[in-house]
C-alpha cells in the first residue's frame, strides 16, 4: 500500500501578491494555481495569509555540544520551526568548538534526528576560535555535514594574514568566510555602543569604528584574493557605507543584519537590564534607519537572527557581568514585518528574498529558498500578517528566555511551517516529528 503525503494550502497569498492554492505531494511542491481540488489532501485554509519559502537562518547559536542547559539542537530546531524556519546554521562556538569534522558531523546528525529543520553546521575558521591557526576546514567541507560557511563568530578573525589565508583556502570548494567584525584592541572590556548614552551610563564604549575598520580591511582583502566574504550582523551606518562602496566596485561580499538591530537602540541600556546586552551592541536610531534602508536596497543581503540563548543566571546580574546575546528565531519574521513591511520598505517578495532565497544562496543550501517553484522541496512558511501577538518569554520553544521583546505586541503570526513537505507547525503549534507523518 502506498501512502502519499498530500497537503493543500487554500487561498494563499504568494509573495508577489497573487492568490493561489499550493499542493504539496510527498515532500515536493506539486502545483501552484488558483483552484486546486484534491480529495486525498489534508486541506489548510490559509486565506489572508502570506506563503513564503521556508525561512533560512545563516546565524544561529544552538549551544550543543557544551551548553545544553541553554539550548540543544532539538530545542533550537523547535524554536526555529515555531518562527517559520526550515534551515538553521549552527555557529561554531560550542564547547568543544566545531573546528573539526567530528563536531560538525555530530551537530549535523543531531539536526537530522530532530527532523524539524535542516541544521547546517558552520565550521570554525581557526582552531579553538583563537585566531591563530586554521582549523581543519577541508575535512569539515568533505564531512557528511558538507560545511561551506566558516566563522569564528563571537571572535573576530583579527590577524590579517590568517584572514587572507582562510579566504584563499576556501576557494577550493566555493566556501565563504562569515566575519564577526570586531577589532579586539578597540573593544577591550566594551559593554555598549560608544556615544551619548554610554557617556552618561558609565559603561565602557564599543566604538562603531571597531566594526567598520575590520569590514573595510576585509572587503579589500577579499577583493585581492578573489574569494567570498560574508559580514555577520552589520550594525553601523558607516559599515553599510563601506559595503555599499565594495559592492559598487564589484567586490564579492554579502552582509547580514539581525532583527534586533533593525528595531532596538542603545537607549534601552539606560535600564541597565542585560537583556539588552548583545554583541555587537545596539546602536543609535540613525544606525537603525541606515540598516533598514540598506536591507531594502540590497546593500545588506539578508536578515540573520544571531539567536543566542543564555541561561537565566547569565542575564540576572549586573550589566558588566552578564553574557552577550538575545533570542531571535521566534520573533524574527514579526520584527521584519514591523520594521520593513509595515513601513513600506520591503514587499513580501523582498522578505522571501532576504530571509530565504538569499541566505540559501550564500550558504549553498540547495533545498531551500526555492521560492515555491514547482518541483522543488516543499519548505514553506505561512504568516498571517493581519494578526498580532504578544511576546511572552515564558512561552518560547527555546530552552532559554532571554528575548528582549518580552511584552511587545508584534504584527504577523507564523501559523504553519512545512519542512520537506511535512508540517512542523500547524496553527502555531509544533508538530512532533513522528506525528507529522
Amino acid at each position: 500500500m502506498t501512502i502519499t503525503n498530500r497537503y493543500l494550502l487554500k487561498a494563499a497569498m504568494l509573495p508577489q501578491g497573487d492568490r493561489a492554492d499550493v499542493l504539496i505531494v510527498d515532500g515536493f511542491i506539486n502545483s501552484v494555481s488558483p483552484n486546486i481540488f484534491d480529495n486525498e489532501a489534508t486541506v489548510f485554509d490559509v486565506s489572508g495569509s502570506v506563503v513564503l519559502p521556508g525561512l533560512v537562518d545563516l546565524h544561529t547559536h544552538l549551544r550543543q555540544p557544551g551548553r545544553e542547559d541553554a539550548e540543544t539542537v532539538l530545542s533550537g530546531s523547535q524554536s526555529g520551526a515555531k518562527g517559520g524556519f526550515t534551515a538553521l546554521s549552527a555557529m561554531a562556538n560550542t564547547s568543544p568548538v566545531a573546528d573539526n569534522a567530528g563536531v560538525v558531523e555530530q551537530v549535523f546528525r543531531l539536526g537530522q534526528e530532530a527532523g524539524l529543520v535542516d541544521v547546517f553546521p558552520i565550521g570554525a575558521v581557526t582552531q579553538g576560535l583563537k585566531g591563530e591557526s586554521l582549523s581543519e576546514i577541508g575535512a569539515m567541507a568533505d564531512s557528511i555535514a558538507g560545511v561551506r560557511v566558516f566563522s569564528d563568530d563571537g571572535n573576530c578573525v583579527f590577524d590579517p594574514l590568517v584572514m587572507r589565508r582562510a579566504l584563499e583556502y576556501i576557494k577550493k570548494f566555493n566556501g565563504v568566510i562569515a566575519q564577526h567584525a570586531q577589532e579586539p584592541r578597540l573593544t577591550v572590556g566594551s559593554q555598549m555602543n560608544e556615544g551619548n548614552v554610554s557617556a552618561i551610563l558609565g559603561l565602557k564604549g564599543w566604538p562603531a569604528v571597531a566594526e567598520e575598520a575590520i569590514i573595510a580591511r576585509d572587503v579589500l582583502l577579499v577583493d585581492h584574493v578573489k574569494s567570498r566574504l560574508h559580514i555577520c550582523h552589520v550594525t553601523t551606518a558607516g559599515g553599510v557605507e563601506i559595503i555599499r562602496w565594495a559592492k559598487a566596485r564589484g567586490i564579492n561580499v554579502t552582509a547580514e543584519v539581525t532583527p534586533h538591530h533593525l528595531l532596538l537602540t542603545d537607549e534601552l541600556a539606560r535600564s541597565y537590564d542585560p537583556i539588552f546586552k548583545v554583541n555587537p551592541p545596539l546602536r543609535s536610531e540613525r544606525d537603525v534607519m541606515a540598516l533598514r534602508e540598506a536591507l531594502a536596497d540590497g546593500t545588506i543581503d539578508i536578515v540573520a537572527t544571531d539567536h543566542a540563548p543564555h541561561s537565566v543566571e547569565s542575564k540576572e546580574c549586573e550589566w558588566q557581568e552578564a553574557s552577550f546575546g538575545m533570542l531571535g528565531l521566534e520573533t524574527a519574521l514579526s520584527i521584519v514585518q514591523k520594521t520593513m513591511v509595515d513601513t513600506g520598505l520591503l514587499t513580501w517578495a523582498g522578505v522571501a528574498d532576504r530571509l530565504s532565497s538569499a541566505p540559501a544562496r550564500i550558504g549553498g543550501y540547495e533545498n531551500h529558498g526555492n521560492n515555491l517553484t514547482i518541483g522543488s522541496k516543499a519548505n514553506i512558511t505561512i504568516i498571517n500578517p493581519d494578526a498580532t501577538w504578544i511576546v511572552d518569554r515564558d512561552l518560547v520553544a527555546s530552552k532559554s528566555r532571554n528575548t528582549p521583546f518580552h511584552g511587545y505586541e508584534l504584527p504577523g503570526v507564523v501559523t504553519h511551517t512545512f519542512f520537506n513537505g511535512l508540517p512542523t507547525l500547524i496553527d502555531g503549534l509544533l508538530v512532533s516529528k513522528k506525528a507529522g507523518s
Partner: protein
Amino acid sequence: MRHLLSVSDLTKTQAISILDTASELARISDSTIKKLPTLRGRTIVNLFAEDSTRTRISFEAAAKRLSADVINFSAKGSSLSKGESLKDTALTLQAMGADAVVIRHSASGAPQRLADSEWMRGAVINAGDGTHEHPSQALLDAFTIRKHLGKGSSDLHGLRVAIVGDVLHSRVARSNVLLLKLLGASVVLVAPPTLLPVGVESWPVTISYDLDSVIPTVDVVMMLRVQQERMGDLYFPNTREYSRYFGLNSERLKSMSANSIIMHPGPMNRGLEITAEVADSARSVIVEQVANGVSVRMAILYVLLAGQPLEAGNK
C-alpha cells in the same frame, strides 16, 4: 522619592531640600548631644562590594546619628568575594528586613538593578557605582560650595566650577555635572582628550584642555583622583606630564581668583593631581568636605526613610 540612584532622580526642589535638611542636621551635630531618634528601629545595610573606607564610614556615622541599626556588608571576607550573585545578596538582605541598602559596587548600574528588581523592597542608595554616579558625593560637594560661596542663596546660580582630571572614569564627575547644572552653576571640564568620554559633547558643560586658562575664571576648582590602574593604559604618557598639564600646584594656586576654593573627593594622590601645599592651603576645603559628608548623608537617609525633609525649627 524612593531611591537615590542618580542625581537625575532629583528635582531642583528635592536637591535643595536635601541641602537644607543637611544644614539643619549640621547645626544639631554641633550640639553636645549628636544623636537624633528619627530612625530608631530601622535597619540600614552598608553593602560595599568594592573597597571604600571614607564613604562607608560616612554613611555609617550618618545612620548611627539618626539612631538606625547599621549592618556592614563588605567585599573582603564576605560571601560577595566568594562569587555570590547580586540577586542572592539582595534576597539575603530582604530576609534580614533591611529598610535601606547603601550600595557601593564596581559595576555601573548595580544599584539600579537592585532597585528595579523584585529581589528586595527597601530603599536603595547609590554610594558609587562603577564609572556611573556617586550622588551623595555630588550633594556634599554642592553643600560645601553653597556654604562657602552661596551668599545666602538656596542654589548655586551664577557660580563657575571647573572639574579637572579623569572625567572618563569618574562617577563623581558625572553626578557633579548633573547636580551643578540642576542648581544653576556652570561647569567647565578640564582634562586630556583621552580622559573625556565620547559623547561628552551632549553634556551641559564646556570643555577645555588648558587648565591655566581656566583657573583664573572659576569659583571652584574640583580635582579628580587619577586612578593608579589607568596609568599603564595609554591615557597619558606618564605621571610627570600629567602633573605638568593637569595637576594643581602652587603656581596655579596663585592665579586663582579671590574667594575661590579647591575641592577633591579623596582619596588624593598628593604630588600627582594635587601638590601637598595646595591640598593643605587656605583655599582647600577638602577636609571640610568629609565633615559635610556626614550631614548630607544624614539628610539623604532622613528624606528617604523618614519620608520628609526636616524643616527649620521643626525638631
